[in-house]
């Protein structure tokens, strides 16, 4: 499987015949073939009539169906899930943006959005596109809180000259810390450890 360099939308798939190439596309794009658009790029037949044959196609999700996997999953999901929730789905440039509302949205936001992020995790396994979920400006509020915390710790490091190590954070949270702190001259950051959750070290550097 080769990523197409011209666009990040379409990818190339190979197979011994068209059916196999489409099957590979189905697996990689997580869509059934009626939801995939494709074009045949090459159909190489080896000289002298040898049986060996390879076909390359370029395939991408059909426009109108990009949000369908998420929508149909969520509709069924919410019919089984005892919480009363509604959702609104929006397509932004490269990802699917999902806003939850409803009487039980408070449960989504408990424990720093634990449930909201759990649903997001599952949706991202299902959707061919990146899914970002939100509810009651959860993202904006969380970002503001992280910014304030980063600024406070950064100030402390600047004053004392001693490094600070923050608690474990996910990549999205760490990104915000890195961005905020690196705007301040004389400070630098690095992520410590490996895995999904890492700590961020904030330390002073000579300017």
């Amino acid at each position: 499987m080769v990523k197409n360099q011209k666009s990040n939308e379409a990818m190339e798939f190979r197979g011994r015949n068209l059916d196999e190439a489409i099957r590979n596309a189905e697996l990689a794009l997580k869509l059934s073939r009626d939801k995939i658009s494709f074009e045949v790029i090459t159909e190489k037949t080896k000289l002298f009539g040898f049986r060996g044959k390879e076909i390359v196609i370029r395939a991408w999700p059909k426009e109108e169906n990009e949000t369908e996997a998420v929508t149909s999953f969520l509709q069924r999901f919410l019919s089984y899930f005892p919480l009363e929730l509604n959702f609104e789905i929006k397509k932004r440039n490269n990802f699917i943006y999902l806003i939850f509302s409803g009487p039980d949205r408070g449960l989504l936001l408990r424990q720093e959005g634990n449930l909201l992020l759990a649903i997001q995790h599952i949706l991202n396994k299902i959707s061919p596109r990146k899914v970002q979920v939100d509810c009651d400006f959860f993202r904006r509020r969380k970002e503001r809180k992280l910014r304030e915390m980063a600024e406070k710790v950064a100030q402390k490091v600047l004053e004392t000259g001693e490094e600070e190590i923050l608690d474990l954070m996910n990549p999205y949270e760490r990104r915000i810390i890195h961005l905020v702190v690196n705007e301040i001259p004389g400070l630098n950051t690095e992520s410590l450890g490996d895995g999904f959750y890492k700590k961020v070290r904030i330390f002073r550097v000579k300017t």
Partner: protein
Amino acid sequence: MKDLVELIAKSLVDHPEKVHVSQLEGEQTTILELKVAPEDLGKVIGKQGRTARAIRTILGAAGMKMKRRFNLEIIEKS
């Protein structure tokens, strides 16, 4: 709740036909046994168990609303 786990599991795996969920009712706790094909085990557990944890979080929230405990057990189908 069985339907919910089945829907999630079937959406995640490569062999949805091999997904099987059974529900065992206790006094306060319901045990949900999720069986998947061995090659799909990783899909429902996820890297560092993140997917399994997400499913458990979803069940936890459902349990909070229904005032019941749901335990998820993931089993390899032999």
